[in-house]
């Protein structure tokens, strides 16, 4: 705040400052493009459109979870339970189809409901019991991770498995459900379409509608919002419900991709999704969580990881890359940016 007065005061070299602002605003996108060009130039495989699409496809889950987290970041929180929810969705969808021999449609409904339910639970902890977001969702994470394993006694669910009563599981992953991940629209994989739609919806909701504005408001200044008669608790909770639903959508794609109720699914999702959403806050120098930023963040990380893999780097190079990307993004929005970034904290 005052640093920034000082910074501004030291100004005068207008040119320099304008350049800096440009850097903050576009630097990130430029980096993304440069990387893309570099990889395409050096790796013929990378140029191949299939590569591009399967890359987008692989980042779709992270992107969707990231969008969910974006909502919670907008209201000044952070949902740590997205990974667990995605995992839950995988197990649940498998159970619905394999144990109870239901149609894919039913599985989808069940999963979305479950996601909303976990979101409601988070909302309850946060707005009713007044537990800070970060801590509440951490607790939820542990609980969901554990609970989902109870009905399947800790096992992955796969068709033809033997049930407790010794009978063979009647159902299997229905072909239509498997299409969620495997269908293409033209050359474009269906999950990518989903990401696109969800991003546009999120963007519209957050920037163009009353509800979105209220969410930004309670994130930035809950007290002022309350004094202005905003139903703070409602919107705060709503963000978590939406986040839960988004996470479960990501879970559906995962489930359809794996084709069985893999109990380990989703465990690596949380940190990536958080990273993506954080990177997103700095894209375009907006300095606040936003839909396109998150989507771009996912894309960028996808590019980096695919690029490195094709270039034959070992898997642990990817973690380093993730970290570096994240920090670069943060430097853009916090170190270089002269306006205070308004990503409000989680507790």
């Amino acid at each position, binding site marked *: 705040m005052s640093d920034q007065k000082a910074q501004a005061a030291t100004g005068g070299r207008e040119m320099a400052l304008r350049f800096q602002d440009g850097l903050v605003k576009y630097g990130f996108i430029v980096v993304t493009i440069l990387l893309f060009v570099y990889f395409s130039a050096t790796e013929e495989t990378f140029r191949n459109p299939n590569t591009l699409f399967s890359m987008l496809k692989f980042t779709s889950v992270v992107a969707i979870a990231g969008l969910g987290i974006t909502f919670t970041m907008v209201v000044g929180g952070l949902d740590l339970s997205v990974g667990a929810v995605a995992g839950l969705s995988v197990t649940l969808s498998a159970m619905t189809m394999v144990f109870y021999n239901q149609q894919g449609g039913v599985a989808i409904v069940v999963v979305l409901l479950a996601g909303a339910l976990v979101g409601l639970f988070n909302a309850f902890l946060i707005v009713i019991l007044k537990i800070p977001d970060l801590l509440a969702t951490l607790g939820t994470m542990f609980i969901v991770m554990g609970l989902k394993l109870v009905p399947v006694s800790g096992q992955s669910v796969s068709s033809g498995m033997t049930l407790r009563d010794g009978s063979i599981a009647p159902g299997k992953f229905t072909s239509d459900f498997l299409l969620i991940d495997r269908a293409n629209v033209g050359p474009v994989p269906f999950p990518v379409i989903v990401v696109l739609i969800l991003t546009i919806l999120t963007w519209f909701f957050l920037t163009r509608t009353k509800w979105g*504005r209220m969410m930004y408001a309670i994130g930035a200044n809950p007290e002022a919002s309350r004094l202005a008669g905003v139903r703070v608790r409602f919107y705060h909770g709503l963000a978590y419900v939406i986040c839960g639903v988004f996470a479960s959508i990501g879970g559906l794609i995962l489930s359809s991709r794996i084709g069985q109720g893999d109990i380990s699914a989703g465990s690596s999702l949380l940190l990536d999704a958080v990273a993506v959403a954080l990177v997103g806050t700095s894209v375009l120098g907006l300095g606040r969580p936003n839909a396109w930023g998150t989507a771009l963040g996912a894309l960028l990380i996808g590019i980096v990881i695919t690029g490195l893999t094709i270039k034959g780097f070992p898997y642990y190079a990817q973690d380093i890359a993730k970290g570096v990307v994240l920090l670069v993004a943060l430097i853009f929005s916090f170190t270089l940016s002269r306006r205070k970034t308004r990503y409000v904290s989680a507790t």
Partner: protein
Amino acid sequence: MTSQATIVMRDITMSFGANMVLRGVNLEINPAHVTALLGANGAGKSTLIKILSGVYTGNGGVIEIDGEPQTIDSPMTARRIGLQTVHQRIDDGVIPGLSIAENLLFEQIAQNEIGRVASLRSLLPKAREVADALHLDWSDSYLRKDVFEIGVADKQLLILARALARRPRLLILDEPTSALSQSEVDRLFSVINELRASGIPVLYVSHRLGEIDTLADRLVVLRDGQIRGEQDRPFDWTAALKDMLGEQTVVELESFEERHGTTTVLDLKGVQLFTRSAPFDLEIRSGEVTGVIGLLGSGKSELARGIFGADSFVGGTMTLAGAKYAPAGPSEAIRNDVYLVPEDRAQESMLPGWSIARTASLPFLKMIASRSVLNFGKEHALGIDLINEFSVVADGDEQEVDSLSGGNQQKVIVGRWLHGTPRVLLLDEPFRGVDIGARRDISRKTREVAGSGVGVVVLTSDIDEVLEVADRIIVLVDGEVRMDTYSSQTNRDQIVVRMSEVA
């Protein structure tokens, strides 16, 4: 009282835990009247207002509007009934991250008085209408700005405009001018007069008696949670002050004999406050109180913070008692016995949940620590000292500072610096939101300190305040010194003229 009172409050009570703040307040607000609400810090003014505006639901009493009882259980209901409130804290009014336009329309959006779906562009015209309520001619590009980037003054104006947007049945203003410049205050007053003319009642809270004198038709005084006095024009101020401060008789402004410091303790050379302003030289002398006065934005805080090393000047050098002085930060300034009481109490001085003793000892932990290990006995003594010296109203040195009223909070954070060995003591807006009693206490202390050979600088935008405390008066305009003289050699009008001169 006229029978057709618009708003009647009967036996309003409110308590925070054990602390009973309002003990049966009876208040009538008549149409076409500006009713001024006076009271010492902590009298319960803001609390009363928060009950009227549905922030707190009081534990007892009735509120009648045009005869029928109303239950105001939320800000929403208050607004629906037509009670518009501008709360004391500016930060409680604006939402950073949203544009000025969105902030102007915020309540309307929240209340679905505007379409649920709208782009920023489509909001601009409506926003301009709201701004017009206060004759603010803000350009579209300005309306698109993030509220975070605008000054305190504009924030206050924004909030006022928003409150005026829909003609309210009652307008409630809680210390609306503490951040406004004179011209802006005048603009606000003219709007208030229009409202009054059109029959709309206004409930007005302020510590600035001058304002109340020019504006109010009636004044009510709140003390110990009850109405202790009501007057219609013309006001008898001594009576009002007695009602306000009760037994604690007003320390009459003893017309102090002016002191003239001889030795220069701090010497500023070619100091430049804003990139747009010209550099100037300034000597701070020990043994006198230097009053720096200027409108908001004139750079008082820049000056103070620069000397304290909290921010760096655009340019210039300083020498402290002959030695070169260029503090890298406040800690270095403090080591050189240059202290600052900053402008914004809540943001820049208070630590949530910290007791009086802890707050007091923070700048001088060395004093209460031996080999860096704290001695709680000494700390306790320090706290008690402070409470006695400044007659702070508190349960003890363990009470949390947040739970004190404004004036007492200010006493604590001013008083704590006097435990050190100041050579230069800077006080930025030390009287903001402080009642007259506390104000006299603080200014008396300040003069004592100066008397003991300290270079004291008081920065304020209020003429009464500066005349009350300062030997020497410096007028600051747009970051430049326009006048530097002893108060005996000038007068109020001259100062006003100099202050409002534009470069």
